[in-house]
């Protein structure tokens, strides 16, 4: 049985480590914020200029000057800090953020990511996605394994315009988890299967070429 959205987020949360500074994208990645293990310290960055994102505010306590990158009202925490967009992306581009978990439209077997535009449709813009994938130490992409028509979103080559070339370290889909050796040209390796998902099933639903970790074959 494939992972649910919640289970996919829980799998992504296993990439968190104590002391990490993390940037979470919109959608399933946002759910990871509530899955930090007890006793582990993780600091969330919002690329519009906040380190230390707190929970959503109580009604009546919202502050128009305090939003996240998804334009939602949020709160800060004791120990938070605010900074400009230039300083924020200095942090990101300079490799100071340990981990970013992002959604994707397509990922290729060499770690290319497409998640910002579909030709012919109105382009909303890439916002901070291109900077995050270029700068953050480890990039985890969370997405459905297949599109609505059953086509593989994990591909030999992305068909959509890229957000970044050779940027994805780990791909988590509803069917399994792939490690991508984006720097070493070692390609992709399936390292986990969702419970009840067979190797044959994931192979049949994947266009990308991948190795299979020992123990899964």
């Amino acid at each position, binding site marked *: 049985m494939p992972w649910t959205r919640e289970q996919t987020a829980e799998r992504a949360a296993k990439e968190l480590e104590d002391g990490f500074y993390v940037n979470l994208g919109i959608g399933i990645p946002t759910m990871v914020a509530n899955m930090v293990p007890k006793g582990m310290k993780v600091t969330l960055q919002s690329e519009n200029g906040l380190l230390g994102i707190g929970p959503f505010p109580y009604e009546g306590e*919202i502050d128009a000057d305090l*939003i996240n990158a998804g334009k939602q009202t949020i709160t800060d925490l004791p120990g938070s800090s605010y900074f*400009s967009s230039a300083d924020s992306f200095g942090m990101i581009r300079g490799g100071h953020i340990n981990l970013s978990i992002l959604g994707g439209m397509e990922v290729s077997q060499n770690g290319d990511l497409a998640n910002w535009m579909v030709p012919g449709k109105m382009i909303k813009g890439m*916002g901070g996605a291109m900077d995050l994938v*270029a700068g953050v130490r480890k990039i985890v992409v969370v997405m459905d394994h297949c599109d609505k028509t059953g086509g593989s979103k994990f591909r030999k080559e992305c068909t959509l315009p890229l957000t970044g070339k050779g940027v994805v370290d780990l791909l988590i889909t509803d069917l399994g988890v792939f490690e991508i050796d984006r720097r070493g040209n070692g390609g992709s390796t399936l390292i986990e299967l969702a419970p009840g998902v067979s190797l044959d099933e994931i192979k049949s639903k994947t266009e990308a070429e991948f190795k299979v970790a020992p123990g899964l074959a």
Partner: protein
Amino acid sequence: MSSKIFKSAEAAFEGLTFDGMTVAAGGFGLCGVPVDLVMALKQSNAKNLTVIGNNVGCDNHGMWHVLANDQIGKVILSYAGENKILADAFMSNRIEIEFNPQGTLAERLRAGGAGIPAFFTRTGYGTRIAEGKETREFTDRDGNKDWYVMETGLTADLSLVKAWKADKEGNLIYRKTARNFNPMIASAGKVTIAEVEEIVEIGDLDPDSVHTPGIFVDRIVLSTGQPKHIERPTTREKEAA
């Protein structure tokens, strides 16, 4: 000794606008937007503007009004969502949009203000954003070789920023995430106007805590106090006692 303080946004605009000019405005979504100054830009009726900002307003708010008044020929931004007039104008080729990665846009404005005509960034390498731009390989601090894209600095004929507090020198302090693009945009303007929620006396701001030194601010207006809009008000339930 001339004063930097002007009575109104309209007064602060006097003599500054012309057709074809480049205007940069602070804000991220509806947060930290100099709304009175943007309306004064609309009232100026200057045409064929190039507008630089993270976004150019969104439906019924901010720079959207200037767009709706058909004053803008080109926008340089990172996000064009939630803006139907912009989408329509773009899809029918009535407006040019130059999409920038958000961090690249922020850095281009900082560079423009800091006299850096060009810099290299890994952001966008191998994507459409790099098409037609110079690329080059550098080695990072960990010894990894990577390809980088050359991006250029951005300046504006007029910069419009929103701050929380100003003193009469033009020193500015921003509040929370309303800071966003405002500091770099303040530095990138040939002329910069700041709209602020409070004007305090000289000496009332802690000199260690000033975000934008007064040298970057030419004119100051007190905000008329329009309500701040929120795109996605999000709250949580109070836990049971």
